[in-house]
């Protein structure tokens, strides 16, 4: 092949790659700017400080906002993370570091089943496991539903990250006579922590945008509530109910809620990258 032909082929491949990147990025930018254009007008101080209340408030021009939904989202998502992260990381370690353990085949089936399940079924699961036995909708049941969404994502990413850490790391520890669990904690996990953190944050961001699992678990709330034993509001679910409501003012608030949710999720990713970058350089040095 001549050099000229190689240049041509290089050019073709390069433009194909650029085209496919644009194909992904442009619609994303369109969606984000569309949300911004529609919602920016409804973003004001009240939006972050006042509770929703009845639609009459919006129609009569009285202050109304989504303070309770923002607070609820943070509480429910963090509780879900607290449920799912330890279990998910433990499952990932199990699958990667103890491949022969008899617990693994069922664990793998469970994890991939959960991963393929539609999110609304997680809600149904949490409804049957938590809401019905305790006789009422609650933030905790919403967190359990979201934890089911997070768990398989965390378990899978932890497993694949651990698999990519070099065997020599483990061999060093084992050669020094350390037990296996000690090797995992002292050498494997620290080496893989950036990847683990990324996986956890991806799971977190994915669950933060879910509305379906929360419909019949955390249920929705029109007022501020910090009690995890009672119904609580979340942004994705409130966004949905605002969007299908008959009120123009609520539609505008729905767009604004979409902006806040987008910023929330994007901040998670940004912080994750920042933290990961820092730890990464330190480990190298």
């Amino acid at each position, binding site marked *: 092949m001549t050099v000229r032909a190689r240049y041509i082929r290089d050019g073709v491949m390069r433009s194909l790659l650029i085209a496919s990147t644009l194909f992904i990025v442009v619609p994303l930018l369109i969606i984000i700017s569309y949300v911004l254009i529609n919602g920016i007008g409804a973003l004001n101080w009240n939006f972050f400080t006042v509770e929703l209340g009845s639609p009459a408030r919006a129609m009569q021009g009285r202050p109304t906002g989504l303070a309770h939904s923002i607070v609820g989202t943070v509480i429910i998502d963090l509780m879900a993370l607290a449920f799912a992260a330890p279990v998910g990381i433990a499952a990932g370690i199990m699958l990667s570091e103890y491949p022969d353990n008899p617990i693994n085949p069922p664990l793998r089936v469970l994890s991939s089943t959960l991963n393929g399940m539609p999110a609304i079924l997680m809600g149904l699961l949490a409804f049957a496991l938590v809401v019905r036995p305790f006789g009422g*909708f609650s933030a905790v049941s919403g967190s359990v539903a979201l934890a089911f969404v997070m768990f398989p994502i965390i378990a899978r990413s932890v497993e694949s990250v651990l698999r990519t850490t070099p065997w020599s790391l483990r061999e060093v520890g084992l050669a020094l006579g350390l037990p296996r669990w000690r090797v995992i904690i002292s050498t494997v996990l*620290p080496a893989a922590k950036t990847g683990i953190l990324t996986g956890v944050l991806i799971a977190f961001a994915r669950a933060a945008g879910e509305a379906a699992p929360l419909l019949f678990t955390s249920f929705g709330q029109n007022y501020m509530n910090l009690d995890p034993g009672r119904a609580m509001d979340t942004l994705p679910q409130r966004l949905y109910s605002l969007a299908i409501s008959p009120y123009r003012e609520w539609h505008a608030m729905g767009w604004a809620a979409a902006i806040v949710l987008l910023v929330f999720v994007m901040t998670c990713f940004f912080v994750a990258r920042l933290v990961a970058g820092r730890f990464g350089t330190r480990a190298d040095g």
Partner: protein
Amino acid sequence: MKTNRQRALRTAGFSVLGLAFVLALGLTATGTQLFAGGSAEGNPARAAGVALEGAGASFPAPLITAMADEYRDYTGGRITVNYQSIGSGGGIRQFIEQTIMFGATERYLSDEQVAEIEASTGGTAFNMPITLGSVAPTYNIPGVDTGLVFTGEVLVDMYRGEITHWNDPRIVELNPGVDLPAVPVQIVHRSDGSGTTNVWTDYFSKVSGWWADNVGFGTSVDWPRGTGANGNEGVAGVVQTTPGALGYNSLVYATLNDIPYGAVINSSGETILPDLPTTSAAANIDLPADTRVSITDTPAADGYPIASFAWVMVYERLDANSAIETREQAEELVRFLYWTITDGQELSEPLDFARLPQAAVDRATDMLRRLTWNGEAVGAEVIAAIAQR
């Protein structure tokens, strides 16, 4: 060799994991404790305020949530009522599942449902009227505004395909002076289960033997023809974008969104445009004690014929509902519900809701008086105490 940095890193990793574990355990413990209900009396922060949970029909949701807003101010922020609009079907379902303290529905509980509740809880379930609603025929005919006149028979024949064009002689005869174009009728109906559909088809079944025999009524039916759309907003959307469309919407929805709607000739031969007084008037009939009655095709001469109550559902034995944990909650629920049918009714007109007629308020009060908590007549006590004030 371990450097200090490595050690620090490992400790950091450890503590993150540890923290997550502790957090998870702590939260689970708190959650369980709260669920158990044990902390309800013990925790002063919770005892200070009472939270009531309800859910159901979307039609009365603007009124009930506005009542909740007003009641919270009225009680100085002590009582919070959280009402979520999930539809009549969802409201009945969650009421039977006992995940909410009260439900709301546009379709009263069936005899079977009441019988099941009586068998399982040892008390009945009340359907307490809270407000009234009308369903209006909405249309999109070029050049025709609100006020086109229909009869029940004409509406049925349009929905079953006997009348196919807007300039059909039977429509022209009802509307002298209106220039009706030769546009085909495009039927729109709800695709989701809906209390609005129940009212609409209940009326159809009363005015047409054919409809009663072949289609019947319910929250969703097997439509002879037409396009399905999801929710009030879906039907409104299709009607507004389809010339020649005929659909049906809650009156509040039609007026709120400026959709043209028609008048219907009632059983007394009067042409009635749906509005608040004609909706209230439709309920001005002999009400049975349990108010489980359809008021479509009302015998009231000044009543709009496609109207219905919206009901709040409560268990007679409040203690039998697992969503209600304490006597205090039960008392506050009675107090709130009594307020909604008395002072709370003042909120109706400004929000485009029809006020309950006195007969319905009386029936509702009788129901609240019968509510009990572990055999004690909580309802009667609360209402007597309010009356003494």
